[in-house]
């Protein structure tokens, strides 16, 4: 089936190398371009030192020069609204709106058509910034992230507000971490290294795959008295889920960007926990034409014991996407 889905990457994927200053902004963009991940998403507080303080013009010039040099396209700036900036009180509404506007203007200067907003931002703040977002040509996208999903009451509330407002500059950015079908192997292995008995880890993994209610599994494991690592492992069941990918279909008119979350890509190009081979056909069916931005989040699960190689991990996911996005040859009997 033909499709217009494009490949991109969130530079979040290279957080390990960026944090340790092993790779520069140019290095990670160059690496992405080499893999054919030509859409670039950026967590600006990670990639631009000092942001959200005003950045020098040179920073923007450098960004655009990199895009030209590597043939990449700006896709999305991930914003973080720090509404708990002041201890003991929430940031006033107008200040929240002003903070969002800084991000929208920054996204526009980067050339990003989208900015990612976190789900905890209030629908009223989003509504208040929608006119500015339209003016700047930037769509503000709420990230639908585990443990939420498209049917969660809070996401429904966001949707109702968007529909009522009627703005096409508000929308959603689903994070594919809402489709964790099998317990990630790298999580399990880390909990075992931290002291979770293997048998208990197996039990939790199987219960997750059987989609047993989290509270039952937690209760089981509490009774096993298997220690804090076992409890830490089992309580991840409260915050992770396999939602139904088909749920995205009815929101497709508001889905403009996607975080292709992954925890591990094996050498034979498989993500053992998130079934992209089931997710991508749904996106194709829904006529999705945006980017699938790789979002590697495995480093925190292996960093205690293994070297992190974010570039290789992203490369593998991109190779998987290349295969899954290719038009399938018509089947002929041999």
């Amino acid at each position, binding site marked *: 089936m033909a499709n217009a889905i494009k490949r991109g990457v969130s530079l*979040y994927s290279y*957080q390990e190398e*960026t*944090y*340790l*200053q092993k790779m520069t902004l140019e290095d990670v963009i160059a690496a992405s371009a080499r893999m054919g991940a030509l859409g670039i998403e950026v*967590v600006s*507080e*990670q990639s631009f*030192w*000092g*942001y959200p*303080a005003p950045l020098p013009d040179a920073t923007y010039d450098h960004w655009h020069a990199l895009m030209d040099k590597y043939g990449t396209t700006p896709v999305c700036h991930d914003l*973080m*609204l*720090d*509404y*708990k*900036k*002041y*201890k003991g009180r929430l940031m006033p509404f107008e200040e929240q709106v002003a903070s969002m506007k800084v991000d929208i203007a920054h996204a526009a200067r980067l050339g990003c058509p989208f900015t990612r907003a*976190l*789900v*905890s931002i209030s629908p009223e703040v989003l509504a208040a910034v929608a006119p500015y977002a339209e003016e700047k040509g930037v769509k503000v996208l709420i990230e639908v992230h585990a443990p939420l999903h498209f049917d969660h009451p809070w996401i429904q509330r966001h949707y109702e507000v968007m529909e009522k407002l009627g703005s096409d500059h508000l929308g959603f950015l689903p994070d594919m971490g809402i489709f964790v079908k099998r317990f990630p192997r790298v999580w399990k292995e880390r909990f075992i290294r931290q002291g979770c008995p293997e048998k208990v880890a197996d039990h939790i993994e199987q219960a997750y795959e059987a989609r047993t209610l989290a509270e039952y599994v937690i209760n089981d494991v509490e009774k096993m008295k298997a220690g804090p690592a076992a409890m830490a492992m089992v309580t991840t069941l409260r915050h992770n889920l396999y939602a139904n990918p088909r749920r995205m279909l009815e929101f497709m008119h508001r889905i403009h960007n996607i975080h292709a979350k992954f925890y591990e890509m094996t050498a034979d190009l498989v993500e053992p926990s998130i079934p992209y081979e089931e997710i991508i056909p749904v996106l194709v069916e829904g006529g999705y034409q945006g980017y699938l931005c790789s979002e590697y989040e495995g*480093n*925190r699960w292996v*960093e*205690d014991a293994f070297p992190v190689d974010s570039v290789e991990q992203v490369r593998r996911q991109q190779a998987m996407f290349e295969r899954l996005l290719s038009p399938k040859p018509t089947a002929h009997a041999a």
Partner: protein
Amino acid sequence: MFDKYMICEDGFRNVEEGGQVVGFAFGARLPYYRGLGLSMVEEIAVAVDGQAYPREAIRFSVRGRSWTLDEMEAEYEDRWNFGEVAEIRVLTPGGLASGAHTVELAERLRISYLPFEPTTRDAKTLIIA
């Protein structure tokens, strides 16, 4: 994440002022995937060889500016950037004896989208020359 990078291997030293050893210092990073405004750093707790130091003894510095933890909570402009090595100074007359010490660091951050304030810890054995 980045727990094991919180305490830096380099920079552990006694601090002299006016010919007196007034404390010790080491480099530290945020255990977080982005930078954070200083007002959202709720606690930086240090213990050496099992002995905890009081909050009042801690000083935080980046790029030549320095704050107590209380001052830091009221600092709404400056930031601790992503991966940036700050200097944590602990005021304790005489500093630490030469040799190996076990340094423990805990950072509690107020992160807007989390319903609780996470504390992340690191511990390393470092040497005072």
